């Protein structure tokens, strides 16, 4: 049974903090109830327990190989893809008409968490459902019927093919070209790098959702279109032929080695065809709608790896005897104590737990918002959309950046053994490192937060967020034990407002570089406070449960409240230092006219 995540915690967040069943009051989700949600999570756990977790190490040690243009992956990948396809889990949240079961994203995101905690090296299905989602949302009937059923069955792989050697963070510099043909398709030519699951032998076909420029299109982001570019294309007589997408390189990576990252070359023989998705030159817009989801998915991967690391190090700390307690140092005849009894080890474990459960809560908040965007209308919808837009870069960044630190502490708990291949922590440490990089680096997310999301619609998004936080504060004030934490969080929101107000004038003066110079530090502060809000929400739910239980003790809730307090006393104070820097007028990273980095 699963030791890489806590189902109890997932249930707590789903039903006691986010009241997941309330979504079923909306007609779109009315076919569901708590039992369907629980069964979906049970099925995902079963697949994770039997087809993912046991192969965590194995897929890392037996990396994909590129030989004579063919990519082979671990044999279990095919079994896994077939199982998730057969279980109908790849497109579970798609509408009924498109072969899905209208499962709320809130539940879908928990499935993602479980699977990535079990084995994040098997990235495949998130990419496939993302690609299928793009086709169903923006593609023609013909594209939908040709590709989507195969993708949802797990027999074909979907990818997101954006990055090029000269265009990583800067997608406006994409040069892959698309030349219109008379039959309505396009001739594609160019190169893509780092394409995850970009080619492999566990599927019959690979379908790239690719950004390219139609010949003569405007420069920059306004000239980018989205195409379906399959590895094998369907001909008029119903057979499949090679579509001239060559695997010209495979990256040897630090982590997530179960999934190949491919260098692809399209159109070397002028025989690569693509099909336009939606309208010309709208590609980046379409992709961005999907990227929000993908960013939350990457945040979820960060939280999930940190969860697996937390439970691995917790187990170790309970069983490893070492040293005597600081107050018993001279009692050399007494047996050694378990390391979990040392305050410093406790601190590392509580830090991990605070990061994992705080991140997960923020990610589930985002998933619930995306469900609400789906089922509401008018101003209500717009408000949910704005809140989700604001929180997305934070939900990508906090769980990944803090996740890296949490896994590092997990490794530290194991001492020297953590650094060896005898324990999984070294792999988790390698695996999680990519998460602050792909789907937009932390630097890019931070500029998005401060440069766009804080200012769109005259700052309406942060106003909505502070209003939500105020609701939580009000509720927290009704519990004596939570009052001091509500007060602290209120002060922290004030700090964010003060710092934001001090930076905005630079934007108004058009000095964008000065405005965004320390955006990453701003993000760090913003993330700490946003997750403090999530912890207070969890504190309220735990307090409520304790009052209902009366005299019956439940260690789970006690541990929740304890971790909430830990977060407020150990992590929240860090905002002070960050704010000090952000308000500092000394500028050291802008152009000074002198060489200062030697």
């Amino acid at each position, binding site marked *: *049974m699963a030791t890489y995540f806590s*189902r*109890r915690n997932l249930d707590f967040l789903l039903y006691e903090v986010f009241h997941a069943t309330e979504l079923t009051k909306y007609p779109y989700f009315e*076919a569901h*109830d708590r*039992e*369907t949600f*629980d*069964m*979906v999570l*049970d*099925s995902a756990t*079963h*697949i994770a327990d039997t087809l993912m977790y046991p192969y965590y190490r194995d897929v890392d040690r037996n990396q994909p190989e590129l030989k004579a243009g063919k990519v082979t992956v671990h044999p279990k990948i095919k079994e896994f893809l077939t199982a998730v396809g*057969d*279980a*109908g*889990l790849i497109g*579970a949240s798609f509408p009924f008409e498109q072969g899905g*079961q209208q*499962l709320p994203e809130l539940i879908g995101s928990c499935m993602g968490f479980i699977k990535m905690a079990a084995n994040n090296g098997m990235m495949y299905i998130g990419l496939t459902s993302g690609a299928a989602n793009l086709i169903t949302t923006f593609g023609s009937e013909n594209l939908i019927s040709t590709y989507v059923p195969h993708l949802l069955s797990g027999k074909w792989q979907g990818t997101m093919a954006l990055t090029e050697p000269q265009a990583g963070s800067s997608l406006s510099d994409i040069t892959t070209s698309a030349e219109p043909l008379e039959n309505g398709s396009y001739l594609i030519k160019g190169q893509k790098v780092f394409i995850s699951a970009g080619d492999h032998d566990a599927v019959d076909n690979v379908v790239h959702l690719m950004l390219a420029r139609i010949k003569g299109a405007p420069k920059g982001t306004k000239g980018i279109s989205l195409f379906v570019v399959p590895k094998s294309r369907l001909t008029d007589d119903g057979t499949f032929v090679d579509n001239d997408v060559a695997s010209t390189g495979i990256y040897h990576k630090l982590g997530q080695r179960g999934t190949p990252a491919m260098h692809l070359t399209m159109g070397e023989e002028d025989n690569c065809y693509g099909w336009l998705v939606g309208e010309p030159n709208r590609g980046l817009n379409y992709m961005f709608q999907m990227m929000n989801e993908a960013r939350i998915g990457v945040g979820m991967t960060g939280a999930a790896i940190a969860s697996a690391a937390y439970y691995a190090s917790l187990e170790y700390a309970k*069983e490893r005897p070492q040293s005597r307690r600081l107050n018993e140092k001279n009692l050399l005849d007494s047996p050694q104590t378990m390391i979990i009894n040392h305050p410093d080890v406790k601190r590392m474990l509580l830090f991990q737990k605070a990061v994992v459960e705080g991140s997960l809560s923020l990610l589930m908040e985002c998933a619930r918002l995306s469900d609400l965007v789906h089922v509401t209308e008018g101003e209500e919808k717009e408000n949910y959309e704005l809140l989700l837009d604001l929180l997305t870069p934070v939900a990508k960044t906090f769980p990944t950046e803090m996740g890296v630190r949490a896994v590092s502490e997990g490794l530290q708990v194991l001492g020297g053994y953590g650094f060896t291949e005898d324990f999984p922590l070294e792999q988790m440490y390698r695996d999680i490192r990519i998460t602050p990089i792909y789907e937009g680096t932390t630097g890019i997310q931070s500029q998005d937060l401060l440069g766009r999301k804080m200012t769109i619609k005259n700052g309406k998004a942060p106003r909505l967020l502070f209003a939500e936080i105020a609701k939580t504060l009000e509720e927290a004030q009704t519990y004596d034990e939570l009052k001091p934490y509500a007060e602290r969080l209120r002060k922290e929101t004030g700090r964010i407002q003060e710092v934001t107000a001090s930076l905005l004038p630079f934007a108004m003066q058009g000095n964008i570089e000065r405005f965004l110079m320390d955006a990453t530090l701003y993000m760090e502060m913003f993330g700490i406070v946003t997750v403090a809000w999530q912890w207070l929400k969890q504190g309220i739910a735990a307090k409520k449960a304790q009052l209902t*239980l009366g005299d*019956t003790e*439940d260690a*789970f809730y006690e541990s929740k409240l304890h971790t909430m307090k830990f977060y407020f006393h150990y992590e929240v104070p860090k905002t002070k230092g960050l704010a000090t820097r952000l308000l500092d007028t000394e500028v050291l990273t802008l152009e000074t006219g002198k060489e200062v980095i030697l």
Partner: protein
Amino acid sequence: MKILVCISNVPDTTAKISFTDNDTKFNKTGVQFIIGPYDDYALARAVELKEQHGGTVTVLNVGESESDPQLRKALAIGADDAIRVNTEPTDSYFVAAQIAHIASQNSYDLILMGRESIDFNSGVVHGLVGEMLGIASYSPVMKLDITGNEAKFAREIDGGKEHLSAALPLVLGCQEPIAEWKIPNMRGIMTARTKSLAVVEPVSVDDSTVLEKYALPAPKGSCRMIPAEEAEQLIALLKTEAKVL
């Protein structure tokens, strides 16, 4: 073919077990429940037999409403309808009497269940049900095929297997590898909501046992590592400390 599968609602194998009310009540707080793992094998085989031969699979539980999620799961896996006898399953005789009562009202060709539940592990319900209904029962059955009115099956015996055949109807207590556990797929999960789950009241049965109290086994001691080259020390410890030699 009409198949009845009896399932128990048991704590997950990793659940922390504790008791309340002077050790007379199992503390269910925070415990996750599952279909008894052996019952789950029986259910999986029943669904496969239905796929091969047609017919229906009814799933039955003697228990209170907290069992409903497990019945729904069985429906999602492929059972056609469910019955819950609405009562606390106090002991094996009581449960067997409830099952026999339901079975006597419907003529089932096969009554399958796990070889034992994993909470109280009495392992006698299939035998009792067979006796009450006057039909043959076998356990633990690890392979099962049906041709016409005849069942061919294998039973685990000390050090091997025995291969048997018998005419239907039969009551069988099942175990692995009779089938592989099935997980509900999305479509099954959604259609389970539309299938019937009938709740019926129990028949009265004389109390045969009275529970006095539960007790947990003594906690496991910590692990001690003894280097391979010091086998003599190991033997001494097994004699003097563990007292197993």
